[in-house]
């Protein structure tokens, strides 16, 4: 194999070499374009405020400083936002699995009566929805507005069900269930003692999908929650990132004594750098975990796309 590959390399024509070089160069440039904005955000967050304001930070932190972090962590809502996001994320993972796994298991059974109709019942909701206002009014009538449960209970996805069903259908042989049933196992027993233990990979995939979706979401929180102490991290960020912009403009235009103005200007500068540190703080869990869990995300996508 290795030998064949080497031969191949030797026989490469001139055109093929050009092709390889151009491809390599282009893809490296694209990679840099993807990395740099993220990298820049991180180095700015660790740099001195004045160095940032004068545009000296380009490829490495200048005058290493943690001021932006101490400022960000002093923001009252960051801590509660983090905690809330963890609660919502954990909650929607549990709730999502609780509803999705039994459903997907049942949907994978050939002997489910009117399976086609039941499939459509779920799939239609992917493409047709009641829209913002009926959804809002429904939650109001259920007394779910400004209730933490609204974010957790609302987080289901038909797509995840389809993935899990495909997995149950293709990865667990029917013979396992059949022999268990011969020995007198009930459907529940089959589900809990055969399907679930064998579904560990898909459970990990679904948990990650539900988790990331919830961690990154802000829209439902924005329209259904009103007290700031219930806001998830993303919504806190959304508010803070826009608020610090205002702080900046008011410092420039206000009629203040020079001392006050200078102080405010400095505050505004810190607020600017704080944006970078907040971005890093809120995406750090993902940044750290991503290389390790990437394979699960990809696996989920593969199963979803499977047409076997």
């Amino acid at each position: 194999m290795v030998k064949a590959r080497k031969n191949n390399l030797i026989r490469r024509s001139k055109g093929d070499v050009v092709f390889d070089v151009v491809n390599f160069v282009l893809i490296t440039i694209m990679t840099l374009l993807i990395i740099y904005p993220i990298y820049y955000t991180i180095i700015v967050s660790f740099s001195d405020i004045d160095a940032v304001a004068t545009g000296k930070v380009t490829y490495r932190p200048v005058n290493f400083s943690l001021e932006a972090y101490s400022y960000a962590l002093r923001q009252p809502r960051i801590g509660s936002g983090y905690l809330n996001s963890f609660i919502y994320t954990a909650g929607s993972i549990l709730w999502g699995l609780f509803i999705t796994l039994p459903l997907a298991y049942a949907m994978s059974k050939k002997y489910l009566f009117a399976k086609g109709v039941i499939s459509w019942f779920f799939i239609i909701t992917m493409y047709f929805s009641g829209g913002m206002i009926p959804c809002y009014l429904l939650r109001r009538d259920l007394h779910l507005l400004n209730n933490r449960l609204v974010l957790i209970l609302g987080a289901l996805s038909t797509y995840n069900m389809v993935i899990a069903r495909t997995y149950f259908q293709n990865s667990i042989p029917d013979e396992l269930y059949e022999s268990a049933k011969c020995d007198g196992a009930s459907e529940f027993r089959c589900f809990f003692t055969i399907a679930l233990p064998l579904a560990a990979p898909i459970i990990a995939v679904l948990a990650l999908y539900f988790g990331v979706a919830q961690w990154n979401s802000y829209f439902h929180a924005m329209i259904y929650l009103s007290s700031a102490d219930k806001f998830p991290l993303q919504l806190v960020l959304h508010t803070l990132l826009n608020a610090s912009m205002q702080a900046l403009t008011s410092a420039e235009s206000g009629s203040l004594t020079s001392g006050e103005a200078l102080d405010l200007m400095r505050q505004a500068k810190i607020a600017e750098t704080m944006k970078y540190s907040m971005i890093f703080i809120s995406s750090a869990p993902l940044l750290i975990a991503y290389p390790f869990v990437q394979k699960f995300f990809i696996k989920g996508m593969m199963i979803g796309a499977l047409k076997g």
Partner: protein
Amino acid sequence: MHAKSVVNAPAKRKRLRTEIWKNREIYLLILPAVAWYIVMCYFPMGGLSLAFKSYKGKLGIWASPWTGMKNFTSVFASPTFSKAFWMTIWINVVEVVVCFPAPIVLALMLNELRMNRYKKTLQTIFTFPNFLSWIIVSSIIKNLLSVDGALNGFLATLGLEPVSILGEKKLFRPLIYISGIWKSAGWSSIIYLATISGIDQSQYEAAEIDGASRWQRLIFITLPSLLPTISIMFILEIGGMMSGHFDRIYNLQNDIVASEAETLALYIYRITFERKPDYGFSTAVSMFCSVINATLMIAANMVSKKLGGGGLIGDVNNGH
């Protein structure tokens, strides 16, 4: 079906009933999900009747008086609605032309890359931004492009005038497309890469023996093999056309450029949270979007099946 002629109807019904009773536990397993979907999805769908009503807060959705097509007449007469409608169409057309091919090109490029370890690292990098929220991505972009951001710092070192990209009306839509590619192209390319890895290698070997260059192999073997996947992704793209891209535009916009990219999704959001919202009117607009989405989806699916690209809905439905 075959039993129809042999067994008479009542006997068949009875058999079905015993069959269902025998498997009753399976129905218990789907019960929670069915209940959830009825309450959280189908109930609001019934709430779409609001589009044909004049909403009175005291009466609620169900008791509010019917007004027939009045909401729709005023929706279609509204100039802001038609502006948002055409804006949505336009943004989606450009999106399909510019952003949709990006992951395909990326997958082809990654596939042609010969260094396997480098390829793995690149994949991790390219797919990562997809998992950042739009709040984060938009602030990264804003920081980078703002008047005192990295881009202008770089221009200043070259002795060039600073540019205010975020406040420039003409640049706002290109910014939306580019940020979309930046965030999602890498992740979407995974699906194409998976298809490529399933292509029969003997085709390439035969082509190589016949003297086909790398480029020819790419155009005549790899790309055609990707067509079924491309058509499925295309259907998905079309199916979300009327309601898509909200997060991106909502988070990147500011007061100066807001009017440059008000799609229907943003329009609905704006009119719903205005000081004096007209719920009937907003619901009529979202119903319009939903109907168009569903219609486009079905149409695209049919066309794709006709062209032999393989439909999507059937696959989701049967899983086989």
